[in-house]
């Protein structure tokens, strides 16, 4: 049943889809041979005469099933990436919306280009997109086997090369003129100043309930505090939603960012929401007692540089709100969304999802720390 709680329309559809998918049979990881057959069938219709070869799975990540493959057409070989949703993902999103935004962002910041999209799973078993391949890595090749993005250590050399780009691209995304862009499915929370915060809060609270997250006192307290303290937003902008090291590709030799990835949580909202997410401790590193967001900036340095380059003023009270929302949201993702996908056997890597769920106490502790802080004026 469609929720009656106020939120952006697409998110109501996403919740409906997640509810409906719960009754489907278990899902298992696709075999490369099955993907080869699927792609061959797809291109028989889309590009008659073209052949598919070299299908291989892409490792890492906790959300999509991804495969590289080669498409040979008229003597030319081209590499593509198939991104396919599992039946239920740790973050439930919409492929068409991501495709729309990637098109809009092309030329604003480096992004991968979508070649084909099957948003409603008309051809593929789940919604899918086929992307042009972009060269680059998400973490240094010598950074060990940790899950991408959680505490990735870049080191001094790469840090120096990446930090300006990281910040400048964020500023460019926030400066993007969404009002004149063609962005179907993107709705602006402009009915009143609190709507941006309300839409975000409502969605995450609904999916927490839907996925039967097990409550605890600090989560209840955080939820109530967030409901009672929603900030005004008078400067709506495009937000990325998951901006951090691990979600961009870079050339390991030059340090050039070749693509900003994972736009699926992007929405029109409050730029403080991106800042709060970026500044979360779990996505950073601590070296000799110094915290660096995404291993790139110390907290105050990041805020100062963001203000300088964007011309915006960071409202500390609003940032405090989104610091708390970020940890609460991350708790929901790893503590409710991931386990629900694993419990229902609707994901291709249940064991990773239950592994990630062990980060719950870190977010609980973050909430204790943040809710115990004196509220900024």
């Amino acid at each position: 049943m469609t929720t009656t709680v106020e939120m952006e329309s697409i998110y109501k559809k996403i919740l409906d889809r997640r509810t409906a998918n719960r009754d489907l049979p278990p899902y298992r990881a696709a075999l490369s041979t099955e993907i080869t057959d699927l792609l061959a069938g797809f291109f028989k219709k889309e590009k008659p005469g073209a052949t598919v070869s070299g299908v291989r799975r892409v490792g890492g990540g906790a959300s999509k099933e991804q495969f590289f493959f080669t498409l040979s057409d008229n003597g030319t070989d081209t590499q593509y990436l198939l991104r396919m949703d599992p039946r239920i993902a740790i973050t439930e999103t919409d492929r068409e919306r991501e495709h729309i935004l990637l098109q809009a962002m092309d030329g604003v910041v480096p992004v991968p280009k979508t070649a084909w999209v099957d948003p409603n799973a008309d051809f593929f078993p789940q919604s899918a997109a086929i992307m042009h391949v972009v060269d680059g890595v998400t973490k240094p090749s010598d950074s060990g086997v940790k899950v991408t993005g959680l505490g990735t250590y870049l080191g001094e050399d790469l840090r120096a090369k990446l930090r300006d780009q990281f910040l400048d691209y964020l500023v460019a995304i926030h400066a993007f003129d969404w009002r004149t862009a063609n962005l179907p499915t993107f709705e602006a929370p402009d009915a009143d100043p609190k709507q941006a915060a309300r839409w975000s809060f409502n969605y995450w609270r609904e999916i927490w309930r839907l996925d039967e997250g097990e409550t605890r006192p600090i989560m209840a307290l955080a939820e109530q505090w967030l409901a009672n303290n929603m900030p005004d937003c008078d400067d709506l902008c495009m937000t990325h939603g998951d901006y951090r090291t691990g979600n961009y590709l870079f050339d390991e030799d030059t340090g050039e960012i070749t693509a900003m990835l994972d736009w699926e949580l992007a929405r029109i909202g409050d730029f403080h929401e991106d800042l709060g997410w970026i500044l979360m401790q779990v996505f950073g590193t601590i070296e000799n007692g110094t915290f660096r967001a995404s291993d790139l900036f110390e907290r105050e340095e990041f805020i100062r540089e963001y203000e300088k380059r964007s011309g915006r003023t960071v409202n500390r009270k609003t940032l405090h709100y989104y610091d708390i929302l970020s940890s609460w949201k991350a708790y929901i993702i790893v503590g409710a969304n991931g386990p629900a996908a694993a419990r229902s056997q609707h994901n291709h890597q249940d064991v990773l999802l239950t592994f990630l769920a062990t980060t719950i106490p870190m977010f609980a502790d973050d909430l204790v720390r943040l809710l115990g802080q004196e509220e900024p004026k």
Partner: protein
Amino acid sequence: MTPNTHERLNSVVRALSEVVLPHLPPEASLAQEQVQLCIGQLQILGAQLDAIPAYEREELDDAIAIAKALSGISGGPETQAAQTALAASVDSADGRDVREQRKAINTAVETLVHATSADGDDESKSALTAIILEYEHARAQKDRAWFAPFGFDTL
């Protein structure tokens, strides 16, 4: 006599590490990742196995402790009803099903949090926050230490 649980777990870990993993083809990246995660999960489960009942009992004890600390929170009809329900959940926590009883108490605390926001008196609102922060800080430290072997935590 039953087969030793640790030996059974260790034998699975060894089979996965030394028989299955080396024989997976290089291109089977997902299978390799999943086997490594399975090995990690099993090793940690094995290391924690004997301590799990005490850990879960302590989780319930901590839930009871926070519920009792919150018993002085007062307010209007919603808060009073939530207090009655919370007291009932504590009374029925006899330790026979620690997970379900902890869940029931935490759900009752959640109801009290929302009720206090709705019609609790100002003093109670502050007290409720202070109590939850104090008890949850202690609980979070225990949980972080418990899950530290998974390698994500910077504790």
